[in-house]
């Protein structure tokens, strides 16, 4: 769980942008640095020496992913093992990069789930029902529909979508 205005420098600091996401071993390496720029006080998202995070769902507040257009940001989270995230809102380019890469599902909710989850809570997402359940707290929350990007997310990214739509071969 992270709070508001988590920028791309916190998700993946610039010193690691020398790694190229399309090179498999560098993709994996990016995952080990995911969220290492968070302010002091947050526990490490990926434990030192671990290949991935022990979490698959990330809950955030407002304006997650603000700042740079670096695709290394959603890729670092995906490589760290994130399968879906739920935020109050996203910055535009970050959201677009999540959708285009198909790294994970970027859901939005109408309420401040960062006040209703704590790191380590057990959670379950049902994309069909559009809900996220905090199993630890026994509460269910409705997620917003994905809207216009739903077909791209469902296809698994921009290229898969464009092939399905007959745009490219």
């Amino acid at each position, binding site marked *: 769980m992270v709070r508001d*205005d988590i*920028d791309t*420098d*916190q998700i993946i*600091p*610039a*010193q690691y*942008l*020398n*790694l*190229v*996401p*399309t*090179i498999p071993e560098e993709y994996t390496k990016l995952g080990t640095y995911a969220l290492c*720029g968070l*302010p*002091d006080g947050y526990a490490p998202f990926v434990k030192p020496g671990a290949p991935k995070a022990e979490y698959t769902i990330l809950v955030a507040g*407002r*304006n997650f992913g*603000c*700042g*740079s*257009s*670096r*695709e*290394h940001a*959603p890729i670092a989270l995906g490589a760290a093992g994130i399968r879906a995230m739920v935020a109050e*809102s996203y*910055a*535009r*380019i970050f959201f*677009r*990069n999540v959708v*285009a*890469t198909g790294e994970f599902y970027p859901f939005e909710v109408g309420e401040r789930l960062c006040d209703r989850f704590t790191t380590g809570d057990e959670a379950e997402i049902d994309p069909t029902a559009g809900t996220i359940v905090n199993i630890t707290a026994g509460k269910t929350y409705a997620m917003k529909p994905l809207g*216009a990007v739903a077909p791209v997310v469902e296809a698994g*990214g*921009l*290229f898969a979508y*464009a092939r399905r739509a007959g*745009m*490219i071969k």
Partner: protein
Amino acid sequence: MSMTITEKILARAAGKRCLGPGDNVWVEVDILLTHDVCGPGTIGVFQREFGRTARVWNPEGVVIIPDHYIFTADQKAHRNVDTLREFVKEQKLPYYYDPGTNDYKGVCHVALPEAGHVRPGEVILGTDSHTCTHGAFGAFATGIGNTDAGFVMGTGKLLLKVPKTMRFRLEGAMPPFLMAKDLILKVIGDIGFDGASYCAMEFCGSAISALSMEERMTICNMAIEAGGKNGIIEPDEKTFAYVRSRTGKPFEAVYSDAGAAVDSDRVYDVSKLEPCVAEPHVPSNYALARERRSVKLDRAYIGSCTGGKLTDFLAAARLLKGQKVTIPTFLVPATAEVAEGLIREQVDGKSLVEVFAEAGCEDIAPPSCAACLGGPSDTYGRTHSSEVVISTTNRNFLGRMGSKQSRIYLASPYTVAASAVAGHIADPRDYL
């Protein structure tokens, strides 16, 4: 149907007579810009998806300007530039500005218009969030990721959502101690760090018309710091003079229709504004410089696509003439052309280079993004501990200039120069 300049450019690029906010349209891209940090990944996506032997959609449309990690011993950074070189050769791309040669330019957002690749009415997509800078020339310009860019490289097209337009009218006479940076920090402070999320920020009014092209670039450059999709200013004679001096390619200027609907309309009287800073760690933390004199500084930094243009150094030199800085003051011209300007341009009979040397500034660094975004540990001007920095750059995020313990204040070149003399945040009116 009346449309804004942003809507009209997208309509033309989508081959539609009209469109409106929220429409998702496939647009034809005029220019795809990339650099050494996102270029190799973009090329990786392009080759993975279209095949190792695929050709880019239009060699004239791809502009590659390495600028981020140039003057470093980092081996991966060097490898990444090699990847660009190899691709440029393979694809026979005419617009590549190679480090270590006379073609090298520096920061892509200042270099792109310098090299004549920015023209009114066009669609410019770049793998860098500050691509919004080019809206200063009446173009639609926005930042995208590697996957989108790889798609554009292969097809020349991208699916874009038409943004709502927020209009900002900046009226009145600009006081001599203010710069464009003070105006845009005020706007961001008012609407917030995500105040323009998914929106076009259209700037107009007499104060905008009076700004130079470089100052207009500063305004549009920071649209992303309010979450804007693009920043844009209608072209005028100043725009045409700049563009025509850089390229002979034809273009079609586009303007907002009278009566085009906008989502919001804000008016500012710039004559009432004062020099300001943005306090750590978000650019919307607006404060007046004169109310932050108690903030002691360790370092001043002048550089980047936001604050490393010739206008920015001229302003700093006017203030520093005959003064001495009391803290280390780093100067990184955005491009080689700006660096030449520092030798050529004079203030009271002295070149800018001389003025800065006499004021006790650090030696002028070669053009690149340098410490604006931290980067490899040997990056020039990068922070490594708890330095408090005042900077003409665009982001004061936690850890942005390298160290998570350092604190960054954003300000205009005047305010940064005044603060470099004072050793604490200072109001340039005390020195000008």
